[in-house]
């Protein structure tokens, strides 16, 4: 857990339009440790998603470098799994066809991989729903199917771009706790973007607060919660929860005032 897997140095990015340049990210540097759960919070529109897109190599930064140190010493860029805000399960595919979409695209649909997907479906309670259409599943189940679609490619780093924000509050509490438990159990490194401060505190090992645009890293808050039990909402009942929440709230309130 101590060695870094990803190091970002001086990442810079601007959007360009005919009316001018809009700087989105300014000198972002941080490290992600192997197996860590990192949360990014910041005022809306501050460039959090841009940062994830850059880490996922969907966009090229205008300046700065990303380096990686794979724990096994290999030299490939870490395999990235990306979970979007909506599950985007395709209605014209069954759940099974949806979760194997990535494998199908990468032409890795081998019997061993199919076996692995079936195991994931069984582990996360979707095996009996594998021939159903996405519309026949509840919001929480759909989000779990989206997670399996991401995990099917065996990513080394998971990027989560507000993956629970489309769910209603009740579902959101259970689904976010549920999905984070799955990710922790798999021992994967994860970076979560969220607007929900209590979600960030209850899930993450460390929270990075981004400033308003152009975004820089404003604060870094390591989270240590004393959990009474292993129930889904245990983290939210931890004694330190409130003070972390207030600390985050004040950091962000400063940013809003600065706007």
């Amino acid at each position, binding site marked *: 857990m101590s060695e870094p897997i990803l190091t970002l140095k001086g990442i810079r990015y601007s959007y360009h339009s005919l009316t001018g340049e809009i700087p989105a990210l300014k000198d972002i540097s941080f490290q992600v440790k192997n197996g860590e759960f990192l949360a990014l919070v910041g005022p809306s529109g501050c460039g959090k998603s841009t940062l994830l897109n850059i880490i*996922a190599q*969907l966009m090229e930064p205008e300046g700065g470098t990303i380096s990686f140190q794979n724990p096994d010493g290999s030299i490939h860029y870490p395999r*990235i*799994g*990306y979970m*979007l*805000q*909506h599950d*985007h399960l*395709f*209605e*014209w*595919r069954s759940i099974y066809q949806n979760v194997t*979409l*990535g494998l*199908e*695209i*990468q032409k890795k649909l081998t019997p061993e991989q199919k076996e692995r997907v079936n195991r994931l479906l069984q582990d996360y309670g979707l095996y009996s729903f594998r021939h159903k*259409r996405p519309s026949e599943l509840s919001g929480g189940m759909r989000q779990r199917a989206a997670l399996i*679609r991401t995990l099917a*490619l065996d990513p080394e780093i998971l990027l989560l771009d507000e993956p629970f924000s489309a769910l209603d509050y009740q579902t959101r509490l259970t689904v976010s706790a549920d999905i984070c438990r799955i990710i922790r159990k798999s021992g994967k490194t994860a970076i979560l973007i969220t607007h929900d401060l209590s979600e960030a505190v209850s899930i993450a090992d460390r929270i990075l607060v981004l400033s308003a645009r152009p975004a820089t890293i404003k604060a870094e808050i390591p989270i240590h919660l004393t959990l009474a039990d292993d129930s889904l909402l245990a983290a939210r009942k931890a004694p330190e929860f409130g003070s972390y929440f207030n600390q985050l709230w004040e950091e962000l309130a400063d940013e809003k005032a600065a706007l």
Partner: protein
Amino acid sequence: MKKQHSESDIPSAPFFRKETPCLTAQEAFLLAHKKHHTSIRLSRALLLAAFLALWEISVSFHWIDGFFFSSPSRIASCFLSMLQDGSLAANLGITLCETVFSFLLVILIGIFCATLLWYSHSASEILEPYLVVLNSLPKSALAPLFIVWLGTGMTTIIVAGISVALFGCIISLYTGFKQVDEEKIKLIYTLGGNKIDVYRKVILPGSIPTILSTMKVNIGLALVGVIIGEFLAARRGLGYLIIYGSQVFQLNLVITSILILCIIAMLLYQCIQWAEHWYRKRL
């Protein structure tokens, strides 16, 4: 609130039932729904019957001239004689064949061109004004050109059919392709796909409803183009029969042909409707 008794609790339940038909709200709703539909269907049939009866009576009482306006009975006998001498099957077959052929070509070329436009943003920007012009041009103006270039025959007619429907088809398919959710496209990239994967896994399967609705419009347009073509450049087909009939003042033939056209237009549209149903069911 009082406790509701079930029917079996009331000794006089059967008797009570006889007096007033006791329906649940759902049953009442279904019954009303069924009644409404039956009355709509009945009204449609009555409207047609009334029109035909009025037509027949007007002709037989010489309110209108049967020579110019024909009548249901003349149309029926014309239809029967066309059926017997085989001219109906031959002409109908030709028109249907040309329509289906130009329709299929429109859809294939349309999907192909829309794909190219979607794939190359520059191409779509460059070609946009030309597509708009070609789409709004009255295609019947082109028909004389087609005759000079291609002669009179099936090719000209199929080209006329294609020309009427193609540009609108390309534009609506391209618009449909463009409306696919950006996030769904991003998903494919996050799963390691490229632009071809985006097309195969999202754009094409996601656009099937658009393709089906475009087909519904274009089957009618292809028929319009084919009839225009037949007016000008055919020796067979329903369009030819209409022009020929009007030239020799056989208006029974003209009106019969028009009615047959109505029926095949409806049937062709219905075929696409079935395809759509089948697709929805499969989903």
